[in-house]
């Protein structure tokens, strides 16, 4: 469902993407692939690998958001629906060169799906049957969670579909758990 005012974000995404430094896509794909391979070797349990990927993503996300704000100049979003558009059209474009589609909002506008048609992380990757439990690009879920937490939104992001598992497109479900308010920071509270 196209929303009025959703268009500008495509353009902003293009503009920012044009400005940023780029690296070779193969190098990026291979580097990520070797990270996942190493984690699989180290942890063996695929559920644990998913968790580790998400954690790594979180640590990336809390820093990535600052780079995003510095380069894109996007201000505060009016509501969660705007946040979704910014993540999909500007965020993903800036860092991965792709745009995602925002779909399947729930009634309260607190959950949505990010649908990715292609993803540089999974380019040329094939997952054997025995790796069905692995969400290969799970790092992205962590990145989304880390980045949004730094701008006062506590979310949960999980993969629900992945092209490596045979689906047509990959899908990440993002759920808003809580808006963090400006509580009095620790340094001001009486000991």
């Amino acid at each position, binding site marked *: 469902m196209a929303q009025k005012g959703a268009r500008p974000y495509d353009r902003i995404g293009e503009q920012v993407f044009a400005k940023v430094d780029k690296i070779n896509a193969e190098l990026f794909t291979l580097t990520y692939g070797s990270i996942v391979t190493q984690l699989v070797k180290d942890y063996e349990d695929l559920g644990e690998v998913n968790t580790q990927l998400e954690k790594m993503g979180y640590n990336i996300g809390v820093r990535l958001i600052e780079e995003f*704000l510095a380069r894109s100049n996007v201000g505060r979003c009016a509501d969660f629906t705007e946040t979704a558009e910014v993540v999909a059209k500007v965020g993903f474009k800036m860092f991965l060169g792709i745009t995602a589609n925002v779909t399947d909002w729930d009634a309260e506008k607190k959950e949505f799906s990010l649908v990715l048609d292609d993803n540089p992380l999974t380019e040329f990757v094939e997952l054997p049957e025995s790796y069905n439990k692995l969400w290969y690009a799970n790092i992205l879920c962590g990145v989304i969670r880390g980045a949004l937490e730094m701008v006062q939104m506590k979310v949960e992001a999980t993969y629900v579909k992945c092209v490596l598992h045979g689906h047509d497109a990959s899908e990440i479900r993002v759920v808003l758990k809580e808006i963090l308010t400006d509580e009095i920071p620790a340094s*001001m509270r009486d000991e």
Partner: protein
Amino acid sequence: CIAFARGANMILNLYIYNKSGFCIYYEEWNRKKPSSNLEEEQKLMFGMLFSLRAFVTKTSPKPIDPQTGFHYYKTSSYKLHFYETPTSVKFVVLTDPHTPDLREELKKLYSNIFVEYVVKNPLYRADQPVKCELFIQALAKFIRFLPSFSS
């Protein structure tokens, strides 16, 4: 110690606060009256700004964004400039009273220096004081080249 011409534009000092309200960086260039207790002063500064921000938002005749609404305040002896990022990093700069609004400069300081040399430094952990050499050098260069800095 930098000599300054009377009445010229001057940067006095800079505070950077993180989300939790800790002063992660402080530097002074032209401060005449040294602080008796720097840590105490930094806490007071944060507390004041925190309350001021809330007050400014409450008393505004029309809705304003609490993070960007307040730009600066001016007294007979100095001007305090304020910039807060959406990630709650706060930049506070004190200058002489005639310096124009430094909001754009503070934004550049954030984008080109803080993000580049602090956020992207893998050894820097949030809530730690900033000790990154490259940051300190880049910051010194940036401040010196501001039209508002007198040398």
